[in-house]
């Protein structure tokens, strides 16, 4: 059924708002449970930081937020147009015609 880009009236699982919400609630529940388990399960720790209250959950959350914020900030000076390197070693005449020819060529 390779009906690429065709109109598709079928409703899929995540098209229903209810299903997404349900999934998110399960996910939030898991997070809360894992956080509480920190206090229930006795852990033998190899490092003092691990003793801190909710060390792993906080580290994971804060680490990822910082990661994304820094990465977004990096975009301000690293981002260039998609064809930034495309004119390497080409004459000006070739530039326009060649840039996208066979760009998405996949093997036979």
């Amino acid at each position, binding site marked *: *059924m*390779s*009906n*690429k*880009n*065709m109109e*598709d009236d079928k409703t*899929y699982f*995540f098209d229903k708002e209810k299903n997404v919400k349900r999934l*998110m609630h399960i*996910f*939030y529940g*898991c*997070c809360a449970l*894992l*956080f509480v*388990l*920190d206090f229930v*399960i006795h*852990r*033998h720790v*190899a*490092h003092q930081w691990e003793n801190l209250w909710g060390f*792993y*959950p*906080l*580290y*994971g*959350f*804060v*680490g*990822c*937020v910082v*990661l*994304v914020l*820094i*990465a*977004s900030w*990096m*975009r301000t000076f*690293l*981002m*260039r*147009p*998609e*064809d*930034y*390197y*495309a004119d*390497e*070693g080409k004459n000006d005449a070739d530039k326009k015609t*060649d840039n996208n*020819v*066979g*760009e*998405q*060529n*996949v*093997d*036979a």
Partner: protein
Amino acid sequence: MWMLEIPPFLPFFIGALIAAVTRGALRNIIMIAIPVISAIHLWSVPEGIHLQLTFLDYQLDPYRVDKLSLMFGYVFHIAAFIAIIYSLHVRDTVQQVSALMYAGSGLGAVFAGDLLTLFVFWELLAFTSVFLIWARKTDRSYAAGFRYLIIQVLSGVILLAGALFYVAEKGTLTFDFIGLEGIAGWLIFIAFGIKCAFPMAHNWLTDAYPEATVTGTVFLSAFTTKVAVYALARGYPGTELLVYIGAAMTCFPIFFAVIENDLRRVLAYSLINQVGFMVVGIGIGTALALNGAISHAFNDVIFKGLLFMSMGAVLHMTGRINGSDLGGLYKTMPKTTVLCIVGAASISAFPLFSGFVSKSMVMSAALENDYNWIWLMLLFASAGVFHHAGIKIPYFAFFAHDSGIRVSDPPNNMLMAMFIAAILCIAIGVYPSALYSLLPYDTGYNPYDATHVLAQTQLLFFSALAFVWLNLRGMYPPELPSTNLDFEWVYRRLLPNALQKTFAVIWRSDLAIRQAFMIKLNDGLTYLSRRHRGVSSLLSRTHPSSSMVMWVAVILASYLFLSFFMN
């Protein structure tokens, strides 16, 4: 025990020859049979040196088997088998032949017992694999392939120079512990480092892998970097510098991965991140750390292969790979979606998936040896890899906003290959002792205790929570069609531009000097011609007829004069 002296690369090279002259089903059968037969053979080979040659007074061991090389030998067979199944539909003979040669070269390199043999296979890896990039047949892949080839060959040349210094220093070519001593140690270290994608030498990977063919990238992701990891594990275990290099490798690529749009390039960055864990393990160099590094290499070949296969399936079916063009593919590619998620869970080191055990080993080793800050970096990298490879890849390809693309799951051979890889990911995660009994050291490490499982699960779930929160707040960077500058900018833009400008200045001054000279020359000539341009002078254009008559008279007179003598 039959035919002990047949090194594993030989069946692959012979297979490549046969594949070059056969077509269709016959070639497919041969290509599948080669890794299977070779693996059965390898399973029966005992440790030891099985082949020895003498070359210019030096002893070469082209085929040496021990536990370290066996681990890589096994996983290379698995990778070749899976990737061959994945590429069965490909009719391009060049790709099939070079893929077999490439897999054979990887095997040749890990079983090489001396530096000269290692060098030969090191270069063969480059020359055979570049065709998998060029086979895409685009301008970009052509240029990327050349850059890849130049850097890989450079690494080989440095390795050869290092090997020659090594012979001069030690008087032997045997490849064992080398260490950072003398010129030889450093040269070989740099050669290994380039192939291992050390920071600043890493862009060949992120440049070339996403430009290769759908099936070619699956082969590429398995061999080159893992051969380098193997070489480091043999030559430089316990080298402290590697701990810091490895930690840098785990951290910096994840920032680029978060903002990268080409999903196969995201995977290329996360490949560097995973190799970073292995390099840290090798740098720590204890039994546990080395076991962790080697087993992580083993697992990485499989789960990274699985991820590249799933993204390859997306590219193959939709013709697109940019996150900004994709989304909602789970609707019509459910099998690929599930298989991709298995790969994502494995690379993220979820408990019961393959990455969990091996990553835990490296991190525990870091803590045991008081590398506290390194441990924190690894922990950050674990959260980060889940963020970009575990969530971003499946989310932007298969979920996110609906791109309206409706394509079916890929051909059966591709699904089959992904299925085998996924089964292996789960099997190794659930029953790790089968794999870990093969490791070089016996450490009795048990990753499945409550502490580890809880800690890792907490880390991952709250990383996911961060993703959800950022997405809901609209703070997550959207996928944008773009190029992000990386170190490659230095040799793709800065140096060419600088050279261009330098040469422009040189050409311009050269032109000015020539022109000044020409003007002076012209002036001189003009001066001379002016002085002598009067009628009947040296450079004049016209001569009066009177002088003609005079000269004729002179000739006749001399003629007359001469005739007196002749008589």
